[in-house]
């Protein structure tokens, strides 16, 4: 009962956040210089007063602002994010087409980075003066200071020019279009290597450092001493007792980063021409396709809100003490 109530309260707050995000979007459209109708007319190649009036009517721009706002919220809630100027089709469909590649890219990088980074952090925390610990320090410094697009470009130069064994652009080989089954999977995975590696480097730096700091803190607590005093093996103490608590900050950051996956992938997708939502947003900017751009923004805000909800729930799964509350 408590759990249900807590979830309901979070859902209500999430809905409130969503409306606030939509309000910000709405304000942005109307605060920007130039009115939306003339922007649309401009995209269509210009038009006279009559054309402007018909555009205003078609897009509901002749209504008073509060009415437009309510319509906008209502439509967005029903999943209608408007019509793309350049593609002339619903924005929601465009987003659904492009979400797959982005999720594939970010999830691959996140999973590798979380597993490898946590293991590296655990190993480093066991021996603070070891080579592994120094490696974590250096790795996290470099990973933090390298602009992610530069990392990608260096990999492109390395594997596209110096030692050309990897595809450096797109998700499919042009010669393989229309091919299905396993060869297609292998082709996509082959194209995935470099972009995923670029993102992994960034994430790995964060997770290894986070996991080490968190493990060091947990390993110093009383219950660990108790576990050792009981005569448990170091293996059990580290992985069963300490790691479970040390994972909390890792889960927090992972949830946050999964929510922000579109923002995080924009630069990498641009470097590798990966056909995801990041490149869609950039195309929308270059084509002045505001509905698509704002649609991607709305959609990624929803993703952040959803990821935050899931993170909250996963705390309860990791830490049983929170279940009663």
């Amino acid at each position, binding site marked *: 009962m408590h759990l249900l109530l807590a979830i309901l309260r979070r859902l209500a707050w999430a809905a409130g956040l969503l409306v606030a995000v939509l309000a910000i979007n709405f304000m942005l459209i109307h605060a920007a210089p130039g009115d939306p109708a003339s922007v649309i007319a401009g995209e269509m190649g210009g038009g006279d007063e009559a054309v402007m009036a018909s555009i205003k009517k078609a897009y509901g721009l002749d209504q008073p602002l509060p009415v437009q706002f309510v319509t906008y919220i209502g439509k967005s809630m029903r999943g209608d994010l408007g019509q793309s100027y350049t593609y002339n089709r619903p924005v929601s469909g465009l987003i659904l087409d492009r979400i797959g590649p982005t999720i594939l890219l970010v999830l691959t990088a996140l999973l590798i980075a979380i597993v490898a980074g946590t293991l590296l952090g655990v190993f480093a925390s066991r021996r603070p003066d070891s080579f592994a610990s120094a490696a974590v320090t250096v790795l996290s410094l470099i990973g933090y*200071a390298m602009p992610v697009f530069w990392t990608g470009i260096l990999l492109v130069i390395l594997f596209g020019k110096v030692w050309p064994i990897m595809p450096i652009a797109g998700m499919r080989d042009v010669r393989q279009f229309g091919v299905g089954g396993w060869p297609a999977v292998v082709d996509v995975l082959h194209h995935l290597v470099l972009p995923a590696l670029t993102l992994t480097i960034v994430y790995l730096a964060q997770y290894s450092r986070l996991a080490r700091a968190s493990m060091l803190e947990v390993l110093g607590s009383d219950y660990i001493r108790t576990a050792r005093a009981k005569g448990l093996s170091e293996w059990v103490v580290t992985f069963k007792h300490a790691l479970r608590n040390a994972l909390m900050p890792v889960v927090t950051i992972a949830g946050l980063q999964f929510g922000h996956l579109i923002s995080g992938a924009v630069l990498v997708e641009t470097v590798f021409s990966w056909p995801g939502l990041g490149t869609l947003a950039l195309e929308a900017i270059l084509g002045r396709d505001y509905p698509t751009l704002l649609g991607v923004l709305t959609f990624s805000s929803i993703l952040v809100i959803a990821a935050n909800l899931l993170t909250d729930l996963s705390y309860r799964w990791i830490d049983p003490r929170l279940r009663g509350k």
Partner: protein
Amino acid sequence: MSATPSNMQVLSPLREAWRVFSRNKAAMLGLLLLVCVTLVMLLGPGLYGVKPFEIMGAPFTEPFTDRKLWLGTDYLGRDILAGMLVGGRATVMVGLAAAVITVSIGVTVGSLAGYFGGWIDSMLSRLTELFQVLPALLFAMVLVTLFEPSLGVVIVAIGMVSWTGTARLARAEFMRLRGLEYVSAARAMGASHLRLMLREILPNALPPLIVSATLIIGVAILFEAGLSFLGLSDPNVMSWGLMIGANRRNILECWWAVSFPGGAIFLTVLSVSLVGDGLNDALNPKLHLR
């Protein structure tokens, strides 16, 4: 470890901090690097004197082949070295200005929420959460597109999307400090809210805020570089990110046009973060471990 009382000297907090900082090799290396980068940026363009947008030679001139064009030219034939020397100014200026905005908004919101608590806190915390939900890079991209790609808009955009972390930090610090006895004593002597916040609490909340500010400078520089790489910064101001973005489509033909500016961003951010780590150790005497 800790010194014995007999040879412990009483130093002012600043000198004590400098003593710890100057013993930290990585931090000193970062400081040295930062001074070098700053000097090159301030003096370089004046000494070298080539305009970064002017075509100086054949396109795609390789570095170290032409005596006049040390670092080669890009796809238009613009001098890379001139761009490198001038380009740091915009990148670092935007980074610094955005960090100032970030810290100002963050500390204002966080200190009000932490000091007053109650409904002010819950209102401001909700505002913070709202801005945390907005995807930072995408939101900045939208702002720059809807308005105009000028340095001012870029600075405001970066500031608007990055202040939430500082706000949470400042809130926690103010919340912790406002309950301490010395603050109650000052309050009992009739100090105003403003005086309590600025003169009593803020100085003690400063060390973690300074450390986070240095980290924010690094993040803001990276943010600016990312935006200008995407072509979303002022196209009339040469910056490292702009150089990389302009040559993005010719990576394989002229690796030098993207590698050198990227390396410059890397070194600058690295030096700032090394200094930040050093400050963290120097200003947090309790953190002398690891």
